[in-house]
């Protein structure tokens, strides 16, 4: 019997961080021992989207967020991945004390391929969504209206900018228009879930 296809309606949108964590998963062999290298937050993403996928629901994001990922600096992403204590533990267990550039490039290439291959998954949906200038401005105005709050002041200092990227704003606008929640580990979203909810955007913090 053919399996039932996943729903065409998207049930959850992922932000760039969640896509990155999900895609940083590599099956490798060291000295004949199979090991799985994965970002611990990728496990949390799987815990959230796994039941949706099992229930034939769809998960996705907007094209702009996916296009932004290589530009985010895949080199830094690989460095962050390698420096993660869990990855360090696995690597040292198999006797790898330092990771040479050729291996970092292997994982960068593998990671970027996984991002590209997301669309091969039956449950994955990608939306070509471009907000209008008015929608972008409205969302920026909403975000900047929180500037007086102390937690926003702290956040701006930490992040070094007073507004999310255009890709994240577009994701929020898409979520609002299509009434789809966003799974996010980005402070721009997860630190202000109540405020975003008031604006019409449901944010599910990854942690």
């Amino acid at each position: 019997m053919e399996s039932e296809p996943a729903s065409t309606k998207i049930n959850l949108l992922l932000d760039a961080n969640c896509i990155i964590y999900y895609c940083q998963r590599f099956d490798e062999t060291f000295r004949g021992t199979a090991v799985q290298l994965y970002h611990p937050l990728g496990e949390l993403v799987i815990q959230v989207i796994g039941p949706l996928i099992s229930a034939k629901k769809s998960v996705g994001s907007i094209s702009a967020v996916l296009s932004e990922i290589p530009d985010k600096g895949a080199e830094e992403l690989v460095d962050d991945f390698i420096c993660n204590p869990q990855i360090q533990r696995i690597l040292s267990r198999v006797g790898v004390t330092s990771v040479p550039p050729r291996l970092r490039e292997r994982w960068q290439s593998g990671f970027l391929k996984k991002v590209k291959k997301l669309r091969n998954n039956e449950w994955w949906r990608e939306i070509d969504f471009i907000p209008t200038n008015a929608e972008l401005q409205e969302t920026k105005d909403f975000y900047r209206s929180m500037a007086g709050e102390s937690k926003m002041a702290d956040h701006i200092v930490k992040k070094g900018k007073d507004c999310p990227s255009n890709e994240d704003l577009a994701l929020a606008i898409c979520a609002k228009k299509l009434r789809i929640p966003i799974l996010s580990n980005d402070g721009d979203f997860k630190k202000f879930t109540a405020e975003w909810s008031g604006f019409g955007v449901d944010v599910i913090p990854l942690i």
Partner: protein
Amino acid sequence: MTLRTHDLPRYWPILFVLDQVGTLRNNFHLQKILYLAQVEHRVSIPYTFALDDYGPYSRTVKADFMSLSSAGLIELQYGDGWIFRITNEGRAVARRICAMVDKDLLEEFRQCVDKWSRKGFYELKRYVYGKHILTDKAYAEEKSDLSVLAETLISQLDTYPTSSNKLLIHGVLDYAKTALGKEKINDPVQRNHFLRAVARLIEDGSAICTATTTNPTVLRELGLAQLRDDFNQFQDICEQYSVLPSLYGENTDLLALLR
């Protein structure tokens, strides 16, 4: 330029050469044209050449032209050396295969055939021996020079801002330098094949570093298709001569890449 031709039948370069020239006298010429296409023209020729009495030679080329003759795609005559002639059926097969091949690759291959098929035996032999059969000393010196250049470029890249492209070039140069250190190929023809490929790769890296010296931030905007193509070919060569496993291979034991 995409130069990978893994999905084509192995004999395709033989048919291509004969489709270009119609008739070719001498196995020597066929072997050397295919060899030069492989080492000088960035064409993925799926034959492994080794040093023989008359320079670079592949037994598989001979096996394949015999099979092509049995299949009626070429005619073979043996008099004062082999004479190869493509049949109408062979021409039709060659054209069908070529329709699937990248146009830039075909043009590169066409220029190679045009250039070398006109040369006489002695001229071709002199060229191949003079340029492609290195002495041990010359080989060691070239390897050492390339290793130093790769190291210099890696140091230059260390000062660049992080980007996906920077890590790619860094990884490519590091892989090339590691391959230079691990290579233990004995056959002079195969050593030359390896050396040419690694030189091309490091020259790609050098050209990119030179072009971005004054403004390293533009590196992230570059396409780097040539570097990727050359790197893919180089990984194939490293696997072919058991120097290093492919960097992107799925079942690679990473120990071999780490040592």
